[in-house]
């Protein structure tokens, strides 16, 4: 136990660490430098995220959870997952929006104070069509809520999620207004 604690004090394990994937480390370092400025300008030092699974297959959640591991350590960017929409700036929504989840999603949005953004994460949330024809699914988040950003992928990798969310921090427009084409591409 003592050894384990000591190991934690000896040096950060956060990227850059894994030799296996140097491209990812470099990308993270670059993103870390960029977001420092953008986040402070817009939101002080933090952006709070409420995640909503609107009927995903759960793989999107696995990768969103991976953002909190020591490799990605999302909190160092001032990005934080919060337990209530009342504390949130961003709703991060996954899944093809099942009809059984639609109302809960709408209520979560209503419970989120403005200014707020909606990020649709994953191909399902963007309306890839895999589940869209189902009697049980609405098809995409944008059919239910105003979506500011879509991060594609099935599921999006943690890096894609991170660059998407960090891109959002750079946006200097008022929330709710459509993003430019370039901003929409962030993370793709």
């Amino acid at each position, binding site marked *: 136990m003592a050894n384990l604690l000591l190991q934690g004090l000896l040096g950060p394990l956060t990227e850059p660490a894994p030799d296996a994937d140097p491209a990812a480390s470099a990308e993270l370092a670059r993103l870390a430098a960029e977001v420092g400025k953008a986040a402070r300008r817009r939101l002080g030092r933090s952006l709070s995220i409420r995640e909503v699974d609107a009927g995903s297959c759960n793989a*999107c959640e696995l990768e969103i959870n991976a953002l909190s591991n020591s490799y990605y350590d999302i909190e160092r960017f001032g990005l934080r997952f919060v337990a209530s929409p009342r504390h949130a700036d961003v709703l991060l929504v996954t899944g093809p929006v099942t009809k059984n989840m639609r109302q809960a999603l709408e209520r979560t949005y209503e419970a989120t104070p403005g200014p707020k953004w909606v990020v649709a994460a994953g191909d399902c949330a963007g309306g890839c069509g895999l589940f869209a024809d189902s009697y049980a699914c609405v098809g995409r988040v944008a059919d239910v809520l105003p979506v500011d950003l879509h991060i594609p992928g099935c599921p999006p990798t943690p890096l894609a999620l991170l660059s998407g969310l960090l891109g959002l921090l750079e946006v200097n427009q008022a929330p709710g207004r459509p993003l430019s084409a370039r901003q929409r591409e962030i993370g793709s």
Partner: protein
Amino acid sequence: MTARPPFLAKLTGRAEPDATKRRWRRYPIDPAAWDELCGALGTGLDLVSLWGEPGAVHMALREGDEAVIVTLPCPSGRYPSVGRLHAPAVRLERAVQDLTGLVAEGLPDARPWLDHNRWGVRHPLWSAEPVAADGAPYPFLPVEGEGLHQIPVGPVHAGVIEPGHFRFTVNGEAVVRLEQRLGYAHKGTAALMTGAPLAHAGRLAGRISGDSTVAYALAFALAVEEATGSQVPDRAQWLRGLMAELERLANHLGDIGAIANDAAFAILHAHTGMLREQVLRASHTAFGHRLMMDRIVPGGVAQDLAAEGRAAIAATVGHIRRVFPKLVEVYDETNSLQDRVVGTGVVRPEWVNQFATGGFVGRAAGRAFDARRWAAYAPYHSLTVEPPVFEQGDVNARVWVRIREVEQSLTLIDRMLETLPSDPILAPLGSGPAAGPETEGAALVESFRGDVFFWVRVTAEGRVAACHFRDPSWFQWPLLEAAVEANIVADFPLCNKSFNCAYSGHDG
């Protein structure tokens, strides 16, 4: 397993089960035989699944080494309820009723289960009649008594997890009753697969529960291969096993840390989280996708092990072997953590036997079943899988099953990398036995969570004519309701995480 004479031999006409090749043959039966089987369920005769299609209801059953599917024709749309005699069938019958309109006569709880009055259609797998999507409220079980209050939780939870609703009735700190309401993640996947070409249906199968994408894709592929009489190349079989063990490893590592985290012991979570990430990265290097989605297809695998994949996997396995024992030691020797997990959320052995509960929930309460050993599908037919079994049935025992299975998966991965034959990785599907235009197959595959059952009927043109899948969670969720009784509310997250039941997998 049981002293009474076997039931299923009567159906199969075989004195001895065909233990070398467990095939799920389907037998039509009459209401009297149906009733007799219902009465015997839970006494060594396991209910593996129950599902309906227009005018017929099916049960998959297992007894010792024998496995069959029985079909009761019910053109009138009614059949004698299984749940009236065997509680584990109740939720399955409620789902059958929602999806097909088949009525289980005598079902003790006939409330809708997956249908929340939101689809705009009723009985989508049979009559599919349009109805108003009015979201009529769900009648929760009535609660009476002094000093009780209720805590509703979900479907949007505090953590980053799947959607479901928990209705707690509590007395002070103690949980008097938990009632679950599921179905929020229902995507109509079985209906989408029906009529789809096999390749597309396979992609959908791999998205029934994302954390078990390998296991589901494998179960679907094995069922299709049985239906079409296909041979899978050796190398593909071993690569499938490799992916399945990497998936198990990643999930168990994630779970062990997440359970500790729910007891506010974050350091273990941080360490196992890193190990999990390394497994996902190695999987990406080896197979081009962190979760290995769409890699297993009917007939083989879609992608061979990448050149640098072997080294990446071997390095990760070596690293976990060095680090993991230290983490286990910390888990086992931290009193504050042990205080939370030992004796918490106890599942009794008679429950897991009645429900035929698989995975760590079953094995932590004395039920040794593991589909890798029982069904011995390739490559496990030539590997030894000795399921770790514990008796206590508490959170701690469910953690220990995972710990032992992490160790076993490391050994299995070593063996698989050593053995990996050099064959093609994909073969064309066979045309099936000349039984008719449509053929059927079924498979039972061990996911990290427990046994996944898949049944499929394939057309001569290579499309899915009908299908059914049953997530291990169907027989675990109800036991969570029972296990949290008399525990304190604050221990629910711990119990829940130690079960880690699937929502999407269950809801379909």
